[in-house]
C-alpha cells in the first residue's frame, strides 16, 4: 500500500472543506490535501443550481455552482493538493486515513492534523416511518435535485412534497419549472420550516398549494406510487382520524431533515453530541481527539452556506496551526546523554514523535563491569525519571539494548535531554 505523510488532510471538499483548505495554508501548513469521493470539489452545492448563496461572504446573490467556482479558484491559487474520486474508508485516532481511488488504489495517509468536513445526509423514509406500500417513486429531495439538475432526468409528473424546509420548497419550484405538477406541499409543523423568501419565490409565485399541520399517513401503490394519503395533525403531531385526503401522485419527495455524516468520526473515537448529531467541538473546532477538527454540516446543520464557509475557515486555521506546531515539535530532537557509568549511547539524538510510530530502541555500553544487579534509569533534564529497568549484570564488553516505550511520549513534551544512568542495586 502506498503511504503518504502530509500536514493537514481535509475530508470532504464542500464549502466547509474548501474554506478549511485555504485557511490551513494561510496558517502556515505546507502540505494540505483536500479529499472527496466526488469527481469535482464543491460538495452538495454543485447540485443546488438556484441562487441565494454568498450574500454574506461575497455580498452577491450567487447560485450554488458559482459559489463553488469562486472558492475552487481560491483553492487552486493556494496550492492545495486536491484528490477527487477518492473515498475515505477509515480514520484512526492517530490521524491515519485509509482512502481508495481508481487512480491511486488504496493509500494510507498520515496527517499531522485532520479536518472532518463530510457534510450531512438526508433522512430517508425509514427514519420517519410512513406506513403503507413500498412502491418506487419515493425519493429524498436531494436525490430528485441531483436527478433533475445534474443527470437531466425528470422522475415523474405529479408530485407531493413532504416538508416545507428550504430544500423542499426549492424542489417544488424546480419541478414546476421542468413541467411537473406539484399537487401539494405538506408540513407537519404549524409553521413553515424554511426561509420566508423561499416561500414567496418558490411557493406563492407558482400558486403551489401548501398545507401546514398536515402529514403523509400512507403511501399507496403496488409497483409504482399511485397516491399519497395525507391528514391533519393535532398539537402533538398525531394524525386526526377523519381528516384524511388521498392525492393521486406518481412521485413523493421527502424533505424531512438532514443528519450530520459521522461514521468516520466515530471510528476515530470522536465523541458525538446527541443533540446536534455532530462532534463535540471546542472554540477552535477541535474534537475530543487531539489534532482532529470538524466544520460545516458534519458538526450541525446550517441554513446558510456562508456560515459553513466561516466555520470551515476557523477549523482550517486551527488545523493548520496544529500541524505547524506538530512539525516544529518533530524537528525537536532530544539529546541522549551518557550519565553515571555509561560510556556512550547510540543514537545520540531522537525525535520524540517517532514514538507515535512505535517504541524506539537505544544501545549503550557501561564504563566498568557490574556482576550484580543494576538499575538503568532514564532521566530528563527536568529531573523526572521516565523509565527504569533492572538488569542482572552489565559489562563493557557487551552492548546493552533497551527500549523507549510509546507510553512515555506524553512525559517528554518539554524535555531537551535524557541521560542514562547505570547504578548497582544495593540490597538485591
Amino acid at each position, binding site marked *: 500500500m502506498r503511504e503518504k505523510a502530509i500536514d493537514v488532510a481535509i475530508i470532504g471538499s464542500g464549502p466547509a472543506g474548501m474554506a478549511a483548505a485555504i485557511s490551513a495554508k494561510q496558517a502556515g501548513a505546507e502540505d494540505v490535501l483536500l479529499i472527496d469521493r466526488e*469527481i469535482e470539489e464543491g460538495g452538495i452545492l*454543485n447540485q443546488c*443550481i*438556484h*441562487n*441565494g448563496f454568498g*450574500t454574506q461572504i461575497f455580498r452577491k*446573490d450567487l*447560485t450554488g*455552482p*458559482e459559489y*463553488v*467556482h469562486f472558492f475552487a479558484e481560491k483553492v487552486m491559487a493556494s496550492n492545495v493538493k486536491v484528490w477527487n474520486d477518492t473515498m475515505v474508508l477509515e480514520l484512526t485516532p492517530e490521524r491515519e486515513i485509509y482512502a481508495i481511488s481508481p487512480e491511486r488504489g488504496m493509500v494510507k495517509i498520515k496527517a499531522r492534523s485532520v479536518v472532518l468536513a463530510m457534510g450531512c445526509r438526508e433522512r430517508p423514509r425509514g427514519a420517519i416511518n410512513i406506513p403503507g406500500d413500498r412502491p418506487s417513486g419515493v425519493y429524498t429531495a436531494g436525490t430528485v435535485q441531483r436527478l*433533475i*439538475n*445534474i*443527470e*437531466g432526468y425528470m422522475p415523474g409528473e405529479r408530485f407531493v412534497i413532504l416538508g416545507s424546509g428550504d430544500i423542499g420548497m426549492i424542489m417544488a419550484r424546480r419541478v414546476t*419549472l*421542468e413541467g411537473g405538477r406539484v399537487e401539494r406541499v405538506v408540513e407537519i409543523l404549524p409553521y413553515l420550516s424554511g*426561509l*420566508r*423568501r*423561499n*416561500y*414567496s*419565490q418558490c411557493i*406563492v*409565485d407558482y400558486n403551489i398549494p401548501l398545507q401546514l399541520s398536515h402529514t403523509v399517513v400512507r403511501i399507496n401503490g403496488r409497483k409504482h406510487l399511485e397516491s399519497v394519503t395525507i391528514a391533519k395533525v393535532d398539537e402533538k403531531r398525531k394524525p386526526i382520524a377523519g381528516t384524511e385526503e388521498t392525492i393521486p401522485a406518481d412521485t413523493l419527495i421527502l424533505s424531512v431533515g438532514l443528519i450530520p455524516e459521522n461514521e468516520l468520526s466515530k471510528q476515530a473515537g470522536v465523541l458525538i453530541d446527541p443533540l446536534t448529531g455532530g462532534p463535540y467541538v471546542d472554540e477552535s473546532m477541535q474534537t475530543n481527539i487531539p489534532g482532529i477538527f470538524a466544520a460545516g454540516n458534519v458538526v450541525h446543520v446550517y*441554513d*446558510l452556506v456562508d456560515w459553513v464557509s466561516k466555520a470551515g475557515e476557523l477549523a482550517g486555521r486551527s488545523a493548520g496551526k496544529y500541524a505547524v506546531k506538530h512539525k516544529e515539535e518533530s524537528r525537536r530532537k532530544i539529546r541522549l546523554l551518557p550519565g553515571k557509568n555509561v560510556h556512550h549511547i547510540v543514537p545520540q539524538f531522537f525525535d520524540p514523535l517517532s514514538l507515535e510510530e512505535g517504541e524506539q530502541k537505544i544501545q549503550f555500553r557501561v564504563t566498568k563491569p557490574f556482576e550484580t544487579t543494576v538499575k538503568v534509569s532514564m532521566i530528563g533534564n527536568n529531573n523526572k525519571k521516565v523509565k527504569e529497568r533492572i538488569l542482572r549484570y552489565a559489562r563493557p564488553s557487551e552492548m546493552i539494548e533497551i527500549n523507549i516505550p510509546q507510553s512515555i511520549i506524553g512525559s517528554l513534551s518539554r524535555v531537551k535531554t535524557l541521560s542514562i544512568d547505570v547504578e548497582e542495586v544495593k540490597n538485591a
Partner: protein
Amino acid sequence: MPEKEEITKLICIMCPMGCELKVLHKGKDVLKVEGNGCPLGIKFAKEELTNPKRVIITTVQVEGGLYPLVPVRSEKPVPKSVFFKILEELRKVKVKAPLKFHQVVLKNAMNTGVNIITTRALPKA
C-alpha cells in the same frame, strides 16, 4: 376614476432576511413601505408593483459534456411577463462542451437585453 390607497403585503426576496413589507400604494404609486430592513426593500416593493422581475435559473442541454446539462441563470432579473417564454426558449437550446464559466448560452433573451449565462465551467466528457 382616481385610484384608492391600499396596503399590499409582500415578502422581500432580495436577501435571506425575507422582510415582511407592508406597502401603502395608490395603484402602482408606492406611498410608503414599512418593515424593510434596508433600502433594497423599497426598491423591491416599487418594482414588484410595477414590473415584477425574477432571476431565471434552470439547466440547458449539453452535447459531449462531463454531464448532459449545464446550469444557467439570467445575468439580471427578467420581467415575470416573459419568464416562461424565456424558459421555453431555453428548452430548445443545446450547447457544445467545453463550456466556460459565465459563457452566454442565449443572447438578449426575448429582447429583454438580458443574457442567459452558464453558472459553471463544463469540460468535455
